[in-house]
C-alpha cells in the first residue's frame, strides 16, 4: 500500500486543496450521518423485536408456559379481526385496517 501511495503523483494541495477537501469531507459526513441515523433506527427495530419475541415466548395470558403451542392450528392461524383489537384513529374512522399487508411503513 505504501509503495502504491509512493508511486502516485503528488496532489497540488495549495490554496484550492482546502476547498476540494471540504467538498469531499461534506459528502463523506452526510453519508456517515445518514448511516448513523439508520443504525439508530435498526437498534430500535431490534429492541422492539426482542420485546415481541420475549412476549411470544412467554405465551398468551391465561395459557402459561408453552400451553399456547397446544392450541389447534386453525385457532393459532386466525388473524386478529379489526373489531377485536385496539384500533388506530384512522382505522376507527374508516372501519378497515390502515396498512396493506407487506407494504412498508412510510
Amino acid at each position: 500500500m505504501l509503495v502504491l501511495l509512493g508511486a502516485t503523483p503528488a496532489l497540488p494541495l495549495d490554496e484550492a486543496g482546502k476547498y476540494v477537501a471540504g467538498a469531499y469531507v461534506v459528502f463523506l459526513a452526510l453519508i456517515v450521518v445518514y448511516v448513523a441515523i439508520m443504525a439508530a433506527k435498526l437498534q430500535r427495530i431490534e429492541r422492539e423485536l426482542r420485546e415481541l419475541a420475549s412476549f411470544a415466548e412467554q405465551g398468551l395470558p391465561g395459557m402459561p408456559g408453552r400451553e399456547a403451542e397446544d392450541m389447534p392450528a386453525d385457532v393459532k392461524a386466525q388473524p386478529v379481526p379489526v373489531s377485536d383489537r385496539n384500533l388506530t384513529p384512522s382505522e376507527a374512522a374508516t372501519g378497515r385496517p390502515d396498512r396493506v399487508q407487506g407494504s412498508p411503513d412510510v
Partner: protein
Amino acid sequence: MYGKGLKSLSIATTFALVAALALVFFYAPLDGDQGFIQKIFYLHVPLAITALIGFVVGGVFAIAHLRSGDSRWDAYSYVSIHMSVIFGVAVLITGSIWAKASWGHWWVWDEPTLVSFLIVFLMYATYYPFRYAIEDRDQQARYASVFAIVAGAFVPLNFMAVRMAQSLVHPRVFATTNGGLPGSMMLTFLASLLAIGLLWVTLVKFELTAKSASGQVKRLRRALDAPAPGGRSRVAPEVG
C-alpha cells in the same frame, strides 16, 4: 423482500466509489482553467444529476401508485424523493464550496443554474410537511403522489429552461461546440456518475428495507395487541 441483493449492491457501490475517487485524484488531468478546484466537479455534478433523476423517478413511481393503488409504489416514490432531497443538500453545499473557490462568493443570485436548483430543492422540501399534514393514510398517499408527479414534471422543464438561458458564469462542460471534456476527464466523470448513481440506488434499497422491517414490527405488535381477558393490552406500548 426489499433487502434482496442489498449486500452485493453495497459491495459494488463501495468498489465503484473507491475506483471513482482514485480516477479523480490520480488519473484525471488538472483542468487548464480552474486547476485543482475542478476536482469538485466530479462530485458536485454527478450528485446533481442523480438528485434530479431521482426526483423524476419519484414522479414515475407516483404514477404507478395512482394507476394501481398499490401502496408499495407510494413507498418507492417517497423514498426516491427523500434520498434525492439528501443528495440535493450535498449538491448545494459542494456547489457553494466550488463557487467560493472559483468565483469568490458562496452564492450568486443572478446565476440561473444555482437559483433553479435551489427552487427545485425548496419545492421538494415542502413535500414532507405537505404529506404529513394529511392524517388519513390513503388520502396522504394519493395527494403525495399527485405532488410527486407535478413536481417531477417540473424538473426537466426547469432544466431545459435553464439550458436555454444565457448563463454568465456557470460552465457548460458537456457542450459539443467549443471543446467539451477530453476523454480522460469524461471517463472519470462517467465513473463518478456511475458510483454516485449506485450509491443512490443502494441507499434507497437500504431505506426501503428499514421501513419494511419497521412496518412488519408494527404489524406484529398490532396483531399481538388484542385485548387480553380483563381488558389489558398484552403488549407493552410502543417505544419511540
